[in-house]
């Protein structure tokens, strides 16, 4: 943590991770808008506080942390002399860092992804096997990056604080899906908002680790930032001596996912909430926005300030008294913190280099689909209270089955730009970490971890014995 004074800054905010963060007049104006203050009411880790009581830190604190990292990165880029940043460009990069999470939904990815949720009745065999219609004619909920661009360019308090529409568009383009088409700013620097070694991750790993008390997320941020370099062609990477710090950063991310983000209680209760929201939306209840157009209307209106975690909390509160037995059970599970019981979990570490062999997770999922309806009948528990889910495949680096090295060199790949790059001694241009034969990442690049889980929401008086019997019944479902 650093303490400092700097000319030109209007105010200093003390952050628990990065120490003093200097704010300019414009940044201060932005932070003081209602649109930005909304971030105080969005928890960074959604429902992780159900498992880690202190994990209540907000998108607000994280956004200021990302600004602190951007300050250091732009300083390094300028000092290298390879990237020429005008004052305006530097200011825009700082503003993009500050505003990069402005578009998050209540409980973040939880609500953002309700369009993606598969309900158990859509998975379990036994009803109509053919013809489950996937409606893609409507507009799905937009990703938070795009919501962010709506807010930055259409909420008048932010547009005013940014000094007008022109700058609002320029800043939104740096973090949103519509990024600059070239000359106005270095593509490499804008990638620092999104690549593997991005500021977002650097901050959230440290912040989440500190808040949860889980030490695996600790990274050597000072060494990583102090060893950032820029190549003659403007590509950003780290020097070879910082490779262990970069590899440890990827390991930290890997273990934080396994321990915190995929925690059985958090993951289960968030999945319950996601399914609850989708069911309610499909039934047109409690004014949950029905599609992407409604989300856009909401976030560009004065109601934006109400679109916080409390928005979902209120829906849950109403749903507790819903007429539908399943809706009620799901809502109570969240409200009373009675997380779904994990009946079985199958973890796999799979090599994507060896496709074609069903692993235990596949067998488990297929068995669940085949047998769940009968299981629900046998135990007289509504099928909809079973939660069959899987974590996203987790890799050390963003890309698993990596492109051939020769292909990477020749093709100037989009994906390659998202990987951490290293300046190997004696070479002017950096290589991806996965291309370096002595890196741990290159050896593990083809591997991914995934967890397949079956939960049940059940609160009968015979809960303990029912759960024991259910576990006993399905204990071999991961076998062929």
């Amino acid at each position, binding site marked *: 943590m650093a303490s400092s004074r700097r000319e030109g800054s209007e105010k200093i905010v003390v952050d628990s991770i990065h120490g003093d963060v200097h704010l300019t007049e414009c940044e201060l104006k932005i932070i003081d808008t209602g649109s930005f203050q909304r971030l105080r009411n969005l928890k960074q880790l959604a429902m992780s506080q159900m498992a880690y009581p202190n994990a209540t830190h907000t998108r607000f604190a994280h956004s200021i942390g990302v600004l602190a990292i951007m300050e250091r990165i732009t300083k390094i880029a300028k000092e290298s002399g390879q990237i020429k940043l005008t004052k305006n460009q530097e200011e825009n990069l700082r503003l993009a860092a500050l505003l990069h999470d402005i578009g998050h939904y209540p409980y973040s990815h939880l609500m953002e992804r309700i369009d993606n949720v598969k309900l158990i009745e859509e998975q379990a065999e036994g009803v109509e096997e053919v013809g489950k219609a996937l*409606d893609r004619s409507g507009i799905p909920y937009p990703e938070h990056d795009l919501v962010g661009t709506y807010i930055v360019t259409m909420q008048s308090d932010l547009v005013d604080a940014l000094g007008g529409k022109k700058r609002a568009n320029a800043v939104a383009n740096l973090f949103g899906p519509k990024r600059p088409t070239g000359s106005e700013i270095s593509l490499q620097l804008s990638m620092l908002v999104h690549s593997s070694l991005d500021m977002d991750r650097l901050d959230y790993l440290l912040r989440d680790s500190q808040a949860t008390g889980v030490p695996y997320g600790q990274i050597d941020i000072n060494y990583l930032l102090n060893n950032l370099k820029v190549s003659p062609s403007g590509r950003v990477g780290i020097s070879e001596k910082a490779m262990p710090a970069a590899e440890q950063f990827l390991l930290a991310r890997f273990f934080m996912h396994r321990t915190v983000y995929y925690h059985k209680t958090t993951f289960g209760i968030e999945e319950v909430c996601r399914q609850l929201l989708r069911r309610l939306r499909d039934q047109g209840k409690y004014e949950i926005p029905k599609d992407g157009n409604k989300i856009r209307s909401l976030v560009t209106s004065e109601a934006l300030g109400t679109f916080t975690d409390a928005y979902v909390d209120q829906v849950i509160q109403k749903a507790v008294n819903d007429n539908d037995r399943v809706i009620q059970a799901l809502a109570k599970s969240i409200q009373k913190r009675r997380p779904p019981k994990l009946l079985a979990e199958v973890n796999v570490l799979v090599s*994507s280099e060896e496709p074609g062999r069903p692993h235990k997770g596949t067998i488990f999922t297929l068995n669940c689909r085949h047998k769940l309806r009968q299981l629900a009948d046998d135990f007289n528990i509504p099928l909809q209270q079973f939660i069959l889910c899987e974590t996203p495949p987790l890799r050390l680096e963003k890309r698993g089955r990596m492109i051939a090295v020769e292909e990477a060199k020749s093709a100037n790949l989009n994906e390659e730009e998202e990987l951490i790059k290293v300046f190997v001694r004696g070479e002017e241009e950096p290589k991806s970490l996965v291309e370096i034969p002595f890196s741990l990442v290159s050896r593990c690049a083809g591997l991914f971890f995934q967890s397949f889980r079956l939960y049940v929401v059940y609160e009968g008086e015979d809960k303990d014995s029912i759960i024991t019997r259910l576990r006993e019944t399905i204990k071999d479902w991961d076998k062929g």
Partner: protein
Amino acid sequence: MDRQQIGVKLTVDGLNLPFNIDFFMDRLIMQKTVYLAQAAGVNLGYFYHWYLHGPYSPSLTRDEYSIDADVAAGLDDSKGWKLDESSSRRLDGIRTIFSEADRDKLARKLELLASVHFLIDRKQASKADPSRITATLRQFNKPFSEEDVKNAIGELARYGLLAA
């Protein structure tokens, strides 16, 4: 596979393309295919920005790898699902865009079509100004001629992918 990923798989299947991400050209085809399907009105929910090879969606890349892992493990969740009728009709309307058999030629064609569409759609250039579009593409070392760009604008218009 989640519902968004199922949508991608059904779209690729619906256009009679193999789901293959083994090589860069395969992934480029995948990116531009989904882009053009969305331009035709199949709302798969991916948001594109401009990158080295034109419109690119990191979320889609992530999902491609997930779908690939599931399919490789024998878990093709798209089976038993179908796209709604209106989306299916929209795919029918653009299927012939993808009929080129040579992979590299198809990749180049789709890169051009998607790039030109993106620049026009995001108001970076006018469809009435192919020379500006060509110049923008040249900034990114794309060897497309003005004639190529004019043909691409014509093709996009024929398939109803450009707003009037």
